[in-house]
């Protein structure tokens, strides 16, 4: 084996490893229990889900989008001595193995200018962009209100 083919072989192995790593990170993001709280007729709403980073590398959820709203942003609710303050967050960090839950009263995907007519039981597609794992999709079902009528 000459030096050149040695180098090529190393490159091939390196590439293969790199690809496996990327794929593993990608395969290791799990999205569960996606749902949305959209009051019928309201222009704004929120989507929630559980995000698990199953890889051995830290990752970061950086953006969310949906065709059902003109804008989707990552927000958190801060309870400041009883005063509820909602603020934009610049991404959500995910440690290796960590599960972050977006849930009412906390982190949420804020949906703005929601397409009118969405009813409980309808589903809305969400596209989540991660720094390392790339783009992942999930569909969120619109919650039924506590008092359906």
């Amino acid at each position, binding site marked *: 084996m000459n030096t050149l083919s040695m180098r090529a072989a190393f490159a091939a192995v390196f590439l293969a490893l790199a690809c496996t790593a990327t794929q593993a990170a990608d395969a290791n993001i799990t999205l569960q229990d996606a749902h949305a*709280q959209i*009051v*019928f*007729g*309201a*222009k*704004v*709403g*929120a989507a929630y889900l559980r995000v698990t980073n199953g890889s051995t590398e830290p990752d970061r959820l950086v953006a969310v989008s949906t065709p059902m709203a003109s*804008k989707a942003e990552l*927000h958190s*609710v801060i*309870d*400041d*001595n*009883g*005063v*509820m*303050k*909602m603020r*934009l967050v610049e991404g959500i960090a995910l440690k290796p193995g960590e599960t972050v839950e977006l849930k*009412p*009263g906390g982190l*949420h995907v*804020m*949906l*703005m200018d929601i397409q009118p007519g969405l009813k409980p039981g309808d589903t809305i597609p969400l596209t989540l962009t991660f720094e390392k794992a790339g783009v992942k999709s999930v569909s969120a079902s619109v919650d039924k*209100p*506590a*008092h359906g*009528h």
Partner: protein
Amino acid sequence: MPRPFARVLAVTAVLAIIAAGAALWTFFNAPSPQVTSSGTASVGGPFTLVDQQGRTVTDEAFRGRWMLVFFGFTHCPDVCPTALNDMSAVLTELGTASDKLQPIFITVDPERDTVDAMSQYVANFDPRIVALTGTPEQIAQAAKAYRVYYKKVPQGDDYTMDHTGILYLMDPQGRFMTHFTPNTTPADMAARIRKLLG
């Protein structure tokens, strides 16, 4: 030193210490306007607002029933629909005892929350919830009575509202009884309310 002078000095010193103590006591016990989470006897009071049918109502209209009062706004994606869902669930949980309870939702965003907007919005929750709006002055008065803080916060080319997220329980005489934080579960809330309703 002549004795009478010494006595005056001693009395003055004692009085000064008492005065300083009283001043400190007043200082540390003065109600802080920032405190919104702790229930004090002075929460609640008169208000004049407009319900989702466009009728003018005052707090007097609810005498004889317990009131569960929450301040929020309809352009709220998370905290307010959750609170209204919780209120609805509390009513269901209470069963027939819910007859004694009047849930009230008061907007802190009168600019966008017109009677129509409020009426459309609360139609998605328990129909027993009364939704109140009013002029900015009327809202300010009601919020002041309940020690509720609210503030417009720019968000992109729109705005959102920071606001106190507490639910207040008032007795049939309109007196403050207790409060619930937004993370109290409806089951807990219902259990505590049921005990108080007797």
